[in-house]
């Protein structure tokens, strides 16, 4: 019996080995593997199927879902790309991976007419996220930006600045009304995004070039705002554990008066709690200095072609097809992903799906982006850990701590 079991196990292992090596191209149809986040609405699948059909047999696209959070997506991709895995052709790249993937030589640069085609009419922010050292490394597919969501029944006029929002929340707390401000304060990449948006909005930046720490007074102001929020009545008690979804749930449960989050929270509230949705208002991301529009860190996906793909020509063609206007429209209306083409914001279908479309377009044009460096992941880790928990920030020493930690992050010889 044992011998038979061993033989069976060996056979199973061999079969796995063979399956693992499969997927090579055989002359005719290029089989493209497209790795991207698990897109729930099926709009990516529609684009993949339609483009495969339209290629007239030149390629077929198979979508493989990555894990749901960005950090785990990257972990899987970098492991496989560093091992030169040829089973990956197309990558739905999070905007913060561009410099790293490009510098390591894991994705191919776009050039010629295809580069022109995928950037034509695209808002400048998304193009900036797909560019490294003056070259384009991804076809901008969708963007994203956080807005201020607030309770119209509690706050007649939305606050313009962070200071005002915190004061409004404290006032509501004193009246015994729902008053929390929902933000992303957990030790993860989303917390870096909050800090980056505040530094950018205050007129500063985290890095000056790929390897020089900037920070300065804007960073001090940003750290001060996070500290003030976290130590006031405005803070949700679980701020230091909150990600986007905890914020959404808290707002829907009615304990929050304000929420900084991506537009997905709007349809969600309408579906989950119509009572809250009815009093859910939206406004521009709060400013750091009254009168200066915020520069909100933008998110989104750029389509990259793996350097180890055995069908690069077909992959570029497929990416160009899936980033077309018609598919961006489906992604926007069905999938809730804000498009990167400026003209789509005047499309009636987009206007209907996003009552706040002009606000998004405006924030995408006064955009901020994450520090552009191949070591972004290291820098982000340094920021999260130094500023965690939010209530423990000492604004007077935060900048010097951040400076030394980010310097460590940029060198390969320091533990983080």
């Amino acid at each position, binding site marked *: 019996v044992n011998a038979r079991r061993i033989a069976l196990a060996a056979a199973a292992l061999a079969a796995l080995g063979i399956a693992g090596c499969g997927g090579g191209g055989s002359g005719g149809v290029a089989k493209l593997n497209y790795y991207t986040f698990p897109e729930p609405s099926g709009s990516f699948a529609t684009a993949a199927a339609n483009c495969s059909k339209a290629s007239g047999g030149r390629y077929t696209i198979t979508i493989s879902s990555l894990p749901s959070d960005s950090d785990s997506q990257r972990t899987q991709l970098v492991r496989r790309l560093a091992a030169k895995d040829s089973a990956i052709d197309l990558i739905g790249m999070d905007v913060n991976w561009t410099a790293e993937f490009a*510098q*390591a030589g894991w994705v191919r640069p776009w050039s010629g007419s295809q580069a022109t085609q995928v950037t034509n009419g695209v808002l400048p922010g998304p193009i900036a996220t797909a560019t490294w050292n003056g070259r384009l490394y991804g076809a901008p597919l969708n963007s994203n930006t956080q807005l201020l969501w607030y309770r119209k029944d509690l706050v007649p006029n939305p606050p313009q600045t962070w200071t005002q929002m915190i004061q409004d929340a404290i006032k509501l707390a004193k009246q015994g009304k729902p008053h929390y401000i929902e933000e992303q304060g957990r*030790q993860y990449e989303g917390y870096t995004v909050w800090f980056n948006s505040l530094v950018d909005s205050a007129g500063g930046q985290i890095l000056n070039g790929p390897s020089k720490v900037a920070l300065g007074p804007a960073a001090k102001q940003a750290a001060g705002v996070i500290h003030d929020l976290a130590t006031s009545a405005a803070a949700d008690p679980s701020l230091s554990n909150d990600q986007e979804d905890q914020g959404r749930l808290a707002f829907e*449960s009615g304990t929050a008066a304000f929420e900084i989050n991506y537009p997905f929270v709007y349809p969600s509230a309408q579906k989950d709690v119509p009572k809250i949705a009815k009093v859910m208002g939206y406004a521009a991301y709060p400013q750091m200095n009254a009168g200066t529009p915020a520069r909100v860190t933008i998110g989104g996906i750029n389509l990259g072609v793996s350097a180890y793909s055995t069908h690069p020509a077909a992959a570029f063609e497929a990416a160009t097809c899936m980033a077309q206007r018609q598919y961006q429209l489906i992604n926007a209306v069905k999938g809730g992903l804000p498009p990167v083409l400026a003209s789509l914001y005047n499309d009636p279908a987009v206007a209907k799906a996003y009552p706040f479309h002009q606000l998004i377009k405006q924030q995408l044009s006064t955009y901020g982006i994450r520090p552009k460096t191949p070591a972004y992941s290291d820098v982000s880790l340094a920021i999260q850990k130094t500023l965690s928990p939010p209530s423990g920030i000492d604004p007077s020493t935060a900048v010097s701590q951040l400076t030394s930690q980010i310097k460590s992050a940029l060198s*390969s010889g320091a*533990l983080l």
Partner: protein
Amino acid sequence: VSTGAVTADTTGTAAAPPKRRARVTDRAKAERRLAYWLIAPSVIVMLLVTAYPIIDAFVLSLQRADLRFPNANKFIGFSNYGHVLSSSLWWSDVFHTLFITVVTVAIELVLGMLLALAMHRAIFVRGAIRAIGLIPYGIVTVVAAFAWRYAWESDSGWIPHLLGLHSDPLASTSGSYIAVIIAEVWKTTPFMALLLLGGLALVPDEIHEAARVDGATTWQRFWRITIPLMKPAILVALLFRTLDGLRIFDTVYIFNAGAHGTETVSILGFNQLLNRLNLGLGSAVSVLIFLMVAIIAFLFIKGFGAAAPGAGD
């Protein structure tokens, strides 16, 4: 089964008969040769799946190695170890890890013993009780960690609701440690109980009966008979759980990724290896964790006389 045979068995190595160094017959030689052939495949597999990664990690730890900048890789001797050992982060993470390990293993030993006694003494549905007791251990650690995290969540979790808390327990250091320790204890007490149950099964009833006739109380019988006879099983259980505990990752990572001063050495290694892709520094951390585990195993075996797994045979 005679009492004498059983006690000799339980005391394991200590009571092993002196080895005979007499002449080795041809038959014994042949048998020995056959034995080497028989274990050869598993030894080769073990070398491939354990020795190779360990050596590879050690070699990497002597280099500046970053997956993103393969051209900048170079041999730098032991300076990665210098960076790790001179970092206060490493030492505070070692302290966090040891704290969690010592507290969880201590609690698990007590609860595991109670559970083992219950499983051992159960008269009705013994099989069912043993199976139910083992369920937490059968759940994937990450899944269990998520279940506990949701249970502790301040808006929707049942624990803050039950305790009437208005703050978030996971937003403080003490709360985070309590939550992590409870989740770990819940998860691995059954494993501890299973190992101890094996020890309990070896304590012969005859000795207990004799002691009872002599007027020993239950308490006395537990401390004077059960515990001494179970000592090898207890030490093996403690050893296994200590080594496990030192490598704790999943629960802490899922709860708050090491925020609020709960970062452990495994999370530190993960951050260097998989977040920063700094293979040199990360491998140095891994090798140091390996050494820490090896030293503790050595102390257990030499210091307390725990039998190495399989050494009693």
